[in-house]
């Protein structure tokens, strides 16, 4: 599958809703093990909300090694590559079973240290 982002989204891959649109297109192909080529020619704007939904969301259902081997980014500039990589790294961190009490206890401990 080949997708021209300029045609699908426009020159700015920035908002979450557009990211969801891309996710809905690529997920079925990737889950069948097919290669997906995303061509960013003409795209100049990149922001994390778009990529969180477009590709970060893939990590919840597919193995990261599948995503890295089957999802290809063409003609994406350095800034876009940085955002993609940060999103993939962030999404790979496990978040199931978040222990809110532990988080709050850690923050309270940090707060107590400030008071001491």
């Amino acid at each position, binding site marked *: 599958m080949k997708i021209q982002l300029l045609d699908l989204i426009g020159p700015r891959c920035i908002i979450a809703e557009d990211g969801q649109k891309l996710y809905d297109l690529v997920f079925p192909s990737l889950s069948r093990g097919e290669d997906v080529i995303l061509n960013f020619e003409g795209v100049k704007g990149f922001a994390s909300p778009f990529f969180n939904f477009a590709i970060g*969301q893939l990590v919840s259902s597919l193995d990261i090694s599948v995503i890295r081997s089957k999802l290809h980014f063409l003609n994406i500039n350095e800034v876009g590559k940085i955002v993609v990589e940060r999103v993939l790294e*962030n999404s790979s961190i496990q978040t199931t079973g978040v222990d809110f009490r532990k988080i709050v206890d850690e923050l309270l401990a*940090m707060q107590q240290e400030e008071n001491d």
Partner: protein
Amino acid sequence: MANPVYTIIKIPNINELSADVEFIAALFSCLKHPHASIFYLDFAHCKFLGPFAVAALGAFIRSAIDHGKSAPILWQTLDRKVLSNLCQNGFAGSFGHTSPPWGGNSVPYKEYKVQDLNSIMSYLNDNLLKKDWINFDENVKEAICGRLWEIFANAFEHSKSLVGVFSCGQQYPVKKQLVLSVVDIGVGIPNKVRNFLDESPRTNELRDHVCLQWAFRSGNSTAATVRVKRGLGLDLLREFVAINNGSLEIYSGKARAVADRNGLAFEETRTFFPGTVVNFRMLCDGRVYKFASS
């Protein structure tokens, strides 16, 4: 019918962000007064209004109206230079003054009730990163705008502001700096974080600046779900200002965060700001901007 109770608010001459935020926070607390319904804004003692003050005053006036009150500007009290600046950036025109805006060193005062991507990106591209001020290529401009978009995206998504999001900026040619202030009047970051962590019974013991610190950690987000990890926006911005010698100053609730090349610092403030202020400062001295630390 009882006569409306009015108050005259004397806007002082302040040119330092933390003092500005304190004053504006106190201003917003006046809105809670059950009997006062008209707040006249008197600028007789004001010789300078920075971009944060302009954005925040706009937010205050709209909030007053939203509360069924009013905050009329006493135009005749304005210093000539201050009035000229307010006309230039469009603030005056937004509140009934007849003078239309014009170019110059101001970045226009804007109010956004909804997240309008094209309008905001056009604002950032054409007004903030003007060709006359900064000479870099389109890709770099778009890259910076992409970073700045994160400020607006956060404001729209998280604030639940009834009156929208307000912005204003300024170019300082001598200092070779650009400043953009974005203000929302809403839930505030600390309250959002507490609501998110609400499963713990001790959440209410968390102080605002500790909540803000949690929000800044890469990957933390009150909007994240199991399917979609979020929480990169603030960190990407922090990284950008750190490696390009800019700064990011955020006030929310009783918390303040400052990010610059020296790192990230958090503190508790004396007053409570009912929403979030993001003050972004970058150098425009002909440097080559970087987008990731090597």
